[in-house]
């Protein structure tokens, strides 16, 4: 069972109240209890999974830490008597020990993730391979439960494990504190993927009630719900109608799907993260930002620095960098330089690492081929623009207008269109359908549907479209206001009555215009005959 909206809000309200009336020392234990209660209510059968990850990673980290501690103690004690050579041998030996435990724990946890999330994906691929070789025997699918938030907490745990292995953070001694880091419920379901180094700064310390901080946190929660309930959930109706029937909704509809889905995804995901970060903020806990107004990006590369930041930086720090500077990759560099010459040879390993990262990013999003293709499509676009970079530069240097605002706007819109197109891979499981729908947009004969009222048959009324338009404009305005710093600070400086009107107005808009509740359309409260 998942929480309903009311239950979740009630849960948070009670928690927040308790959080500030109990002794400060008990605050983080309360959060741990709340997080496990949350997880328990979501599904008791998931508990062993998160507990296993928590314990194995905790113990391995402690073990690695004690090896590291002993190593530096030994080196310190024998500083004078050891030669440089001996020191190196000793260090290598310790490193191998650490590495052994590290790899064991990593494989175990990745193994759990792979099994519950990807087992059926592997099986279906093996089966299609078997059938294409003419085999009549196929493997049967396994019935797997996918624990809530497993991708997020596994990645968060692995990040911590790597940090401890590298020595950039010290292993947490208190198993309960560590368990809270893994299970902190606001971010459990959809991130952001936290780093232990950042989160531990505010997660465990006592927090006094600070009305401004709590207010700001709740304000952000409210804003998140606005995006989710008023915009995303409303668009969902039309998007699912269109995606559900690709044989009807193609051609000009492809444009509508891409646009609507992209707006929906943005409102839903950033709204959800606003709720998460705002809730944590209300409890004095700082989580890392996950978005930096991504649709203002001027290139896809920039977009991926501003969208889902915690995931992208995770892949960068824990996959791209290690792979790129690894010994095998350095070997490939040397080899490819010999074969292709200095300039081209240098880029080949870079692209190879990128491809690995994008493949992983794709499969991280879901266990099916469309996500892998989506990842590789991103990779392709990024690499092409990387190659064209010198050309752009020449072009930009030559023409003055490239520095002007209209040209910047053009680049922003171009990037947005590109993101819209790439998002289409999200919509259909079948890649063939994605391709068909996408290419049907070119030279389609049904462009009249954009104007003849067909859009009113997708489950949205003209009033819904007006609300959506208003909502999108409001999101845009807020994003533009962010240029001048925190919008909440800007509102805070206004006189109280105005501020109150803004907060309460937003609340009323959510209450009245939110797409929530039974059938959400009480205005069509249709009765049958009696």
């Amino acid at each position: 069972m998942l929480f309903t909206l009311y239950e979740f809000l009630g849960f948070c309200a009670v928690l927040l109240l308790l959080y500030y009336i109990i002794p400060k020392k008990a605050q983080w234990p309360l959060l741990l209890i709340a997080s496990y209660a949350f997880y328990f209510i979501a599904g008791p059968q998931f508990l062993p999974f998160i507990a296993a990850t928590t314990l194995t990673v905790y113990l391995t980290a402690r073990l690695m830490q004690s090896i590291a501690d002993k190593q530096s103690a030994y080196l310190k004690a024998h500083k004078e008597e050891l030669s440089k050579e001996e020191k190196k041998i000793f260090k290598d030996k310790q490193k191998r020990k650490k590495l052994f435990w590290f790899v064991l724990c990593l494989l175990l946890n990745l193994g759990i993730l792979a099994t519950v999330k990807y087992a059926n994906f592997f099986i279906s691929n093996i089966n299609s391979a078997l059938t294409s070789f003419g085999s009549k025997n196929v493997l049967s699918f396994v019935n797997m439960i996918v624990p809530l938030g497993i991708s997020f907490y596994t990645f968060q745990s692995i990040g911590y494990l790597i940090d401890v292995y590298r020595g950039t953070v010290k292993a947490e001694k208190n198993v309960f504190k560590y368990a809270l880091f893994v299970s902190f419920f606001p971010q459990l379901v959809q991130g952001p993927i936290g780093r232990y180094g950042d989160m531990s700064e505010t997660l465990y310390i006592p927090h006094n009630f600070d009305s401004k901080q709590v207010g700001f946190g709740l304000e952000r929660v409210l804003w998140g719900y606005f995006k989710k309930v008023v915009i995303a959930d409303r668009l969902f109706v039309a998007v699912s109608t269109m995606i559900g029937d690709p044989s009807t909704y193609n051609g000009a509809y492809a444009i509508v799907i891409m646009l609507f889905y992209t707006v929906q995804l943005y409102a839903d995901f950033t709204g959800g993260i606003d709720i998460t970060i705002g809730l944590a903020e209300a409890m004095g806990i700082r989580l890392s930002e996950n978005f930096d107004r991504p649709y203002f990006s001027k290139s896809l590369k920039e977009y991926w620095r501003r969208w889902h930041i915690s995931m992208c930086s995770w892949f960068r720090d824990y996959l791209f960098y290690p792979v790129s500077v690894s010994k095998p990759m350095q070997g490939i560099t040397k080899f490819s330089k010999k074969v292709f010459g200095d300039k081209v040879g240098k880029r080949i390993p870079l692209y190879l690492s990128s491809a690995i990262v994008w493949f992983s990013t794709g499969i991280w999003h879901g266990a099916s081929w469309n996500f892998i293709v989506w990842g590789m499509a991103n990779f392709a676009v990024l690499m092409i623009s990387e190659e064209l970079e010198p050309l752009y530069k020449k072009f930009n240097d030559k023409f003055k207008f490239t520095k002007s605002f209209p040209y910047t706007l053009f680049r922003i819109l171009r990037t947005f269109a590109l993101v819209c197109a790439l998002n289409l891979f999200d919509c259909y499981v079948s890649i063939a359908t994605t391709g068909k729908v996408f290419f049907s947009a070119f030279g389609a004969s049904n462009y009249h549907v954009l104007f003849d009222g067909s859009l009113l048959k997708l489950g949205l009324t003209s009033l819904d479209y007006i609300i959506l338009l208003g909502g999108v404009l409001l999101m845009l305005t807020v994003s533009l206001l962010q240029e001048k710093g925190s919008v909440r600070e800007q509102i805070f400086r206004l006189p109280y009555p105005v501020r109150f009107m803004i907060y309460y107005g937003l609340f009323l808009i959510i209450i009245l215009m939110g797409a929530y509740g039974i059938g959400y359309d009480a205005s069509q409260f249709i009765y049958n005959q009696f």
Partner: protein
Amino acid sequence: MKAAAKKWIKFIVSAVIVVVTLSLLQAILMPKYSVDGPFEGAFVAEYYGETKDHDVIFVGDCEVYENFSPIVLWRDYGINSYIRGSADQYIYQSYYLLEDTLRYETPKVVVFNVQALDPKREAEAKEAYNRMSIDGMKWSPSKIGAINSSMLEDEQFLDYVFPILRYHSRWSKLDKDDLAYMFKLEKVSHNGYLMKVGVKPAENVPEGRPLPNYEFTEKAWKHLDMMVELCEKKGIKLLLIKAPSLYPYWYPEYDEQVVEYAEKHELTYINFLDETIQAETGVDYTKDTYDMGLHMNVEGAEKLASWLGKYLTENMGLTDRRGESELAARWLDKIELYEKDKTEKYEKYEKEKENTEAN
């Protein structure tokens, strides 16, 4: 000190504004059943405006609120009665509406229509009917019981506590009635009776299709037991009836269960579908129904009330109260309204009939 006081004032003023505006919004967003219909949604709330010293309380669905005329019960027998009906009222709602009524008064007889036990209907329960049976109730443990026993899987308790959460999207459909009737109800019933006029004879009413299972549900039995117990505790006589509606089909298998239960608990059960009783009441399905046998028109409802009045007087010990001057005065107004309503409805009906015939 001063700053703190200012802070508190700010907080209190804001809170008051929020509460007041939200209450007003909720009042304006609630469906105005008593003017826009369906009128059935207005019945439950209408009861609270009555003087509560009734001899007989009916609980049940359209088979009571369209089939028995309390006016005739008074006019001919001096029985002061009220129908607490609502559309598609399930047994558990009947129980809690009765419990709610007993908070205000203790009648001598409670009449319960057993159609509410129909398991087929319980399985097809709809949120809309739940809302119409419950929204009008005043807050009490009975209302909470009604909500908890009625809620369907996708319903939430909070939606009943704050109906604005349920009706929030009605803002786009508001009209002047929503403003005018924010805090008042238009009277739509005659002591819970909804008058219908016109004739559509019952022809070829199909027999019910066989069901895989005729058992009343555990939930239904439980609430029937509770109802029996409640009446016993309060010293009220419980009368079970099955109104003479030809549809929804009343299976003999259903009837057997009720008969058996009534015998076991020494209750009286009157099945108006029974041929002898039907002959006694004089209900004529070619004249007395406005919708081909589902419900009675006013003629039929008066016939049934007349029969029931006689039965209640002779067998349940009800006395004629027409001598109580205050009560009689109240009923005088009610009868006047009733006759006026009847005339108007007949005029409207005749006009419509002429129109359809002309076309």
